[in-house]
């Protein structure tokens, strides 16, 4: 019988997550923000859009850490963790795209042109390409994982691909965007991460927001892991029962 690790049952960080997210949403929509040209009130999206990417990267990092654990111990439960963290990471990546698209349609899109028409020009954005690569890599990871039947081999091959892909991907999404011209903020460094870039009232919401969304991602993943482990145990029990009856 596989057991999920203890931290998944603890309640304190789930409560913390809920509190932080309530604070983020209330504070994010009500606290004053600096009035900048072209950005105006849309800056509030910072609390949602940037946090999605942070959560995505954290989840992918968890995924690779569990893949390494798997390769060190060959314990199949780590393989389940790695996969579930990867899928939740993909979910957050898609949400990041969605929030980014809303933000973009108010700030970048040419007001004389419908958003749909300016899409081709905007999609050349290096940051968008970078994330598209990240999502494609993790989709490829899922495809690879599902294409192998044997359980041990599946776990091993997909863990190897996960490590390799992560090692190739992260230099790529941190370095390449800085080499290409871009509309997206963050050409010179980490956008919104340096305290002097950002208004102090906004920081008071921004850091808790990152933590809150990341915790939410981990929470979702732990639920999925528990479900997956439950299903696995159920399956192995079903396979055992006919033998024990006879």
């Amino acid at each position, binding site marked *: 019988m596989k057991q999920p690790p203890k931290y998944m049952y603890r309640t304190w960080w789930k409560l913390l997550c809920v509190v932080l997210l309530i604070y983020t949403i209330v504070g994010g929509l009500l606290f004053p923000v600096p009035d900048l040209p072209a950005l105006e009130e849309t800056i509030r999206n910072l609390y949602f859009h940037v946090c999605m990417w942070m959560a995505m990267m954290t989840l992918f990092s968890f995924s690779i850490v569990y893949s390494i654990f798997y*390769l060190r111990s060959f314990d199949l439960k780590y393989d389940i963790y790695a996969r579930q963290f990867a899928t939740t990471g993909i979910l957050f990546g898609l949400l990041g795209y969605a929030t980014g698209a809303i933000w973009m349609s108010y700030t970048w899109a040419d007001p004389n042109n419908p958003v749909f028409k300016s899409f081709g020009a905007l999609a050349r954005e290096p940051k968008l*390409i*970078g994330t598209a*690569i*990240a999502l*494609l*890599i993790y989709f*490829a990871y899922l*495809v*690879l994982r599902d*294409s*192998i039947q044997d359980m041990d*081999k599946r776990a*091993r*091959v997909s*863990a*190897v*691909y996960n*490590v*390799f*892909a992560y*090692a*190739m*991907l992260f*230099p*790529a*999404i941190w*370095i*390449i965007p800085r*080499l*290409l011209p871009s509309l997206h903020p963050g050409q010179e460094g980490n956008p919104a991460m340096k305290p002097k870039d950002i208004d102090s009232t906004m920081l008071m919401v921004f850091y808790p927001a990152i933590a809150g969304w990341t915790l939410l991602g981990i929470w979702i993943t732990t639920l999925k892991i528990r479900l997956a482990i439950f299903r696995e145990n159920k399956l192995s029990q079903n396979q055992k029962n006919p033998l024990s009856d006879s």
Partner: protein
Amino acid sequence: MLYIGATIFVLFLAIDEPEHKVWNGLFWVTQLFICINAVAKSFLQESRGRMLYFYSIVSPAHFVLAKLLFNSLLMLLMSLLSLLLFSLLMGSPLARPWSFMGLVLLGGWSLSMVFTFLAAIAARAQQNAAIMAVLGFPLIIPQLILLMKISNAAFNPVITFKATDLLLLGALDVLVGTMAVILFPFLWKD
């Protein structure tokens, strides 16, 4: 070899004398496909028995290094050939052919490194070359972007090559090599 010839000939028939941006783009895409076809064979063609034989005589790190070396040499040859054919058939808009040639060799080398390792993974998944494309394209895009960016300098005498970009490319190759040596033993065991 025939593959290179046929691809470039089709391109030659479809468009003649493209302007340099198109030339550059077409060249690297052709390189990509040549690499997939040439390198994919290296692992997919090995029979089970032969793998078992290799397993009994060498360590996995030596085996993967040998594969990487062989595929790199193969790809360097292919790159030179395709550069020659490209310049013959499609005209040569290069302002600096020698430095572009160096870049082509470097690019061919990085492509072959990445795809050798992916071929190893794909071979373990007992799939055809299709899964290699799915796995490999997202991984190779950053390198291709980098290569196209650097090689733009070869068409224009005004722009200079940036040493940092070249170093970055080299660093990525070294990274792939180390990852391959570390991770290959896990793929190797049956």
